[in-house]
């Protein structure tokens, strides 16, 4: 079983600020961690490997700094990692991300299952999984909260919709995006941390892939961010209610019912 887990490195949540002078995001010294949902995806891949054998390959697209997250994934137990990194890939939106990722998966070859977290906690798009599935022309199961192998080629899954669950059965190859309810990601053990440095992280540029240059980077991105700003944050303004309980309740209900 060959499993590719697409991961993304995101800033640790309390590290993100807007520079009030330039209105741009402050990117220096922001600690990067594996997107939490991707950790669930890596964990699921490792469980499948524990159960059915095979290989878990991590795949990511981004700057060199992303290697630390790939290293963390290897320290969880993945076998090898590939980073798509090049100026040419920079400035990509979801479409121009999904394309090189799917080309990389095709180059890896013989991939049975592609796993991703349901969305990243920075951009929150959740689009790359379905885009990759479309480019690979395979079925997708999104927002999976339960996964089970019926046999080596057939995966049973349960999606969590808004207020409902939905069962699905799919024959591999397929793309699956996972929810955090799916599993609890394992810790990187001290031994696995050390051995992670013995596992390869290959860096591929646009020259290593079969690519249409007009579909990557900024050129391949239909969307652009025209403005970024910090939303106005209001602290809570405390309203003192009347001393008399009956009046206080009346005041309260009047306000919150509006």
């Amino acid at each position, binding site marked *: 079983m060959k499993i590719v887990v697409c991961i993304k490195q995101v*800033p640790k*949540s309390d590290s*993100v600020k*807007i520079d009030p002078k330039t209105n741009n995001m402050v990117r220096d010294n922001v600690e990067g961690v594996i997107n939490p949902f991707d950790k669930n995806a890596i964990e699921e891949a490792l469980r499948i490997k524990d159960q059915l054998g095979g290989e878990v390959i991590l795949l990511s697209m981004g700057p060199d700094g992303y290697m630390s997250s790939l290293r963390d994934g290897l320290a969880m137990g993945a076998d090898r990692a590939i980073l798509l990194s090049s100026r040419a890939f920079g400035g990509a939106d*979801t*479409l121009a991300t*999904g394309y090189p990722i799917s080309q990389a998966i095709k180059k890896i070859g013989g991939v049975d299952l592609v796993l991703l977290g349901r*969305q990243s*906690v*920075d951009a*929150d*798009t*959740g*689009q*790359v999984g*379905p*885009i990759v*599935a*479309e*480019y690979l022309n395979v*079925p*997708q199961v*999104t*927002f999976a909260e339960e996964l089970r192998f019926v046999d080596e080629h057939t995966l049973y899954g349960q999606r969590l*919709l*808004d*207020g*409902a*669950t*939905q*069962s*699905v*059965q*799919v*024959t591999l190859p397929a793309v699956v995006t996972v929810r955090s309810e799916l599993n609890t990601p394992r810790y990187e053990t001290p031994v696995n941390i050390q051995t992670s440095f013995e596992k390869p992280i290959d860096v591929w540029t646009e020259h290593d892939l079969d690519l249409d240059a007009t579909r990557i980077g900024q050129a391949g*991105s*239909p*969307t*652009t*961010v*025209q*403005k*970024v*700003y*910090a*939303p106005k944050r209001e602290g*809570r*303004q*405390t*309203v*003192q*209610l009347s*001393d008399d*309980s009956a009046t*206080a*309740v009346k005041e*309260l*209900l009047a*306000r*919150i019912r509006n």
Partner: protein
Amino acid sequence: MVEPTSLQLITKARAIANGQRVVALLPTSDADQTVATVKQYGPDEILVLADDRFAAATDTEIADGLYQVVEQVQPNSMLIPATVVGRSVAPRLQAKLQTGLTADCLDVYFDGETLVQVKPTYGDDIMCEIICADRRPQMATVRPNVFQAEPAQTATQVTNVDFEFHPEAHIKMEKPTPIISSSANISDASVVIALGRGADNPQLIEKAQKLAARLGGMVGVSRPLTDHAEFGHESQIGQSGQSIAPDLLINFGISGATQYLVGIENAKTIVSVNTDPDAPIFTKSDYAYVGDANDFMDALMARVK
């Protein structure tokens, strides 16, 4: 049943359309019922993709059907609910159309014929305005309940679209099963009555349970009350307990220790009741009542049936 967010988006589209036609795309297995519902919100046109198989269709099958219609209609923009299904179908459709899609928008508006898509990132810490300058359609999925659906009267044109349902091989989807939450989780409750040391007596606890039931909510506790048999770790609110984000939180006899406060940061409306006017909980509350918990609880019970 029509996804309520779709109806909200029809209203929003009508509000920002500025002369453009608002067309509802309706893949459905129950055309009569769904068309009747959608009509009430006044789109200029409803394009019906009718097929029984839409009752349990895969994301790809839906995207494929929509793709055929979009190729025919060539819209300027598309708004899709950012529900699980919407967020799964839209990017698949985006890839087929080779266009731009912005997910989970909090607002959309037109600047000429460019759709400006406003979305939060980094967990709502930062707002982005995104545009899709050249490709068409400009696509956006929009968060549920950001906009209100308003019924409207228009002469809505209803058309059955000529399309072909292409069943997807190698995948079988079942019909969705609604979740009836029996053992509800306090972190999902929309109303929480929280009790602290100042409310630690049997009568108050009993009243709180009754009040919670009336409000359709649950009772939670700060750490000291987890000594009670009926309040385990799953009822505990705070750093070592649950984080809650209810629409309404009423704190009784809770002083507001940091360990508690971190569990309630995202509550929408916080009401706090405490005899101590200096209790830190008040600085984090929207409404403060300095006085006896019993009095306030009785007064509230009297008004909430």
